[in-house]
């Protein structure tokens, strides 16, 4: 079974779903028993959603028009 240090190393590959089945099972066994790691994994899930949302900046309307103006004129 993995320990907390290994579990920390596995956090990103776990979330990205690139661990092997065996590694994933091992990580899950640890997570079921360890509140310390489980909290940090849950935090990571919330964090990823938050980061994804936080950086959204709407595209300026004028830019959209400028891009449309770049189109090849129709004959």
């Amino acid at each position: 079974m993995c320990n907390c240090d290994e579990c920390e190393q596995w956090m990103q590959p776990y979330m990205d779903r690139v661990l092997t089945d065996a590694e994933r099972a091992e990580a899950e066994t640890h997570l079921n028993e360890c509140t310390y790691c489980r909290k940090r994994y849950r935090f990571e899930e919330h964090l990823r959603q938050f980061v994804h949302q936080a950086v959204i900046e709407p595209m300026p309307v004028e830019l959209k028009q400028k891009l449309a103006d770049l189109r090849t004129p129709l004959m």
Partner: protein
Amino acid sequence: MSETTREPDARRLATEARDRVRFEEDALALSDQVYRVARHLVGSREEAEDLVQETYARAFRSWRSFTPGTNLRAWLLRILTNLNIDRGRRVQRQPDQQPLEEGDYFLYNRLEATSDGVPDEERVVQRLSQNDVVSALSEVPHDFRDVIVLVDIGDFTYADAAQILDVPVGTVMSRLHRGRRILKKAMAESAVGSES
């Protein structure tokens, strides 16, 4: 070739015009997503706007080199990242730069340590502001930031990101993993200051 008559030529031109219009419409429909990525690959909104315009100008000129049925968003982003590199990024680039990083639990630990009581994980995230994320991201060195922006913000797969940046998939993965740790350290510093 001497057999070529005017009629097939006209038909060919009409087909080409139709394909081009379709390409331009498809590309424009993706502009919000292209801008979203561009905005965080460069430092300012103005730079991002210029870069997106240059990208579309080039894409519309070289639309024939796009293979229909392949990923147009990735194709546009490939143009964009190449243009971004051409815009003198090489000058600022320091290949030997080895930014400091902490483990993946660092940000949580720092936020929890400075919280009152024992908050739940969602509450801990709420201690970060939008600005903490945006400013931290701008501090991540280019090579790492490109990958974070493409995968975590642009929702590209590792394979797409590898193609866009012209690096092996393994490089995308290692830069992504290190880059996220660098980002989390920068967010911790932005939210609660550096450790004294």
